[in-house]
């Protein structure tokens, strides 16, 4: 296994004194789909921001597999909200990372390809406000993938969507992950979503966040509705839910 990024004893204290993370050790390997699961406020978003380089750890280190720091465009981030530029068309939004990183001349083709992959072929010229919440999220995912990043960071991307849309996007995401062979770090509140998507689930403790449990989900891919309704899935959900309850110092009846 090749590590893509390693968090070594990472701590994060905010200027107002809040200690969000303490002694967080986590290695993400190439090709993995890792979910960060934990109670609200345990520092999942903070951990993601540290990996993305949008904040600096106040202790420990974030180490990249390649040694140095990732090049611009080697990282894709999908935020909890779609975070699109309302003044720009869907195509222009997806193209933004290419423009900012001064990338290839075949941008048009790349953008069209990404839009097709997330199922938004006909919407290149639409504006974000003309799309549904789920479609906006797809645009956001297409944008994150357009630079062909090594690592994709997703912060509760589907939390605001209804269950039907969420299942559909979960499936679309898994397809993309398998096709493109990316490494994904996925933050979620949902035990069920985490088990369905991940190859590995990292359960975090309440603030200050640390790793409480690291659970491999060995179920084979592709996963579909059969997996979602299978006995092993239910058993895994129970194991993870117990680990989460344990991390929070409660016991599951």
């Amino acid at each position: 296994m090749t590590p893509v990024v390693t968090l070594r004893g990472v701590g994060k204290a905010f200027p107002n004194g809040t200690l969000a993370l303490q002694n967080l050790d986590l290695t993400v390997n190439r090709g993995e789909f890792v979910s960060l699961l934990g109670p609200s406020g345990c520092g999942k978003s903070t951990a993601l921001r540290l990996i993305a380089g949008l904040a600096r750890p106040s202790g420990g280190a974030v180490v990249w597999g390649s040694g140095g720091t990732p090049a611009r465009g080697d990282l894709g981030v999908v935020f909890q909200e779609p975070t699109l530029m309302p003044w720009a068309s869907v195509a222009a939004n997806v193209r933004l990372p290419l423009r900012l990183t001064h990338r290839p001349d075949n941008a048009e083709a790349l953008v069209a390809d990404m839009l097709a992959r997330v199922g938004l072929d006909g919407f290149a010229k639409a504006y974000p406000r003309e799309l549904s919440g789920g479609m906006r999220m797809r645009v956001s995912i297409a944008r994150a993938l357009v630079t062909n990043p090594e690592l994709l960071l997703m912060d509760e991307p589907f939390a605001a969507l209804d269950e039907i849309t969420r299942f559909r996007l979960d499936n679309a995401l898994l397809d993309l992950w398998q096709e493109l062979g990316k490494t994904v770090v996925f933050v979620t509140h949902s035990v069920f979503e985490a088990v369905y998507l991940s190859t590995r689930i990292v359960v975090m403790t309440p603030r200050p966040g640390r790793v409480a449990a690291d659970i491999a989900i060995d179920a084979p891919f592709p996963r579909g509705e059969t997996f979602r309704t299978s006995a092993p899935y239910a058993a895994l959900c129970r194991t993870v839910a117990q680990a989460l309850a344990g991390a929070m110092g409660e016991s599951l009846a």
Partner: protein
Amino acid sequence: MSAPAADETHRPWRDRLARVGLPVVALLLGCAMWELLVWAYAIPPYELPAPSAIAATLVEDRALLVESLMATLATTAQGFALAVVGGAGLAILFSQSRWLENTLYPYAVILQVTPVVAIAPLLLIYLPQPLAVLACAWIVAFFPMLANTTLGLHSVDHNLDDLFSLYGASRLQRLVRLQIPAALPMMLAGGKIAGGLSLIGAVVAEIAAGSAGAGSGLAFRIAESGYRLNVPRMFAALLLLSAAGIAIFAALSFASWLILRRWHESALVRAP
């Protein structure tokens, strides 16, 4: 503003008629009563001219009045344009240098809170009259542009800001692709205010200049007609000034709607 006409297409026609019709009916009734009063009490035109007399003056003096209107509008437009360029430009400079903002912003506020009526006479001493009038039209419009653009440039979505950092955007990329588009709605709102204020600034300066110079704007006509007790012409000029103000506001509102209609909530047309 709301989309002109567009959001009304969904309304029943009666609603629409009432919205346009009622004010017009009220205006006609008011004018009729005014006319009647002037006629019944035989009020002389130098005390209160009848609407018909004002209309007649409007037609008779049209050459003079239109020339004056054009002069005032030209000053207003120049003052407004300079204010937009200067206000937005300075705000952009401020956004690049907190140090500069802290140094100069207080003076922009002082410029704003000092009544332009009080500054005009001073400007008239130091500047040739047309320039002084222009300066007044500029001063009052400058601050709304500066303040609104500054606010707009600061109100960038934090996640979008992070996204630009993630891809290592340069300052220029951030400014052009993120901050200015994000500020656009606020800038346009500032522009709508600034346009009307430019007219006010120009009028104030013309009035302050009074008969002193060779002014030729509408406000100058009002002052001049006042000295000559040509009250109908005063009213006619006033009417044109109001119309100019309305036209400026409508034009800027339309421009704003045109620019924002594809993406901004303020220009959103909702189905009923």
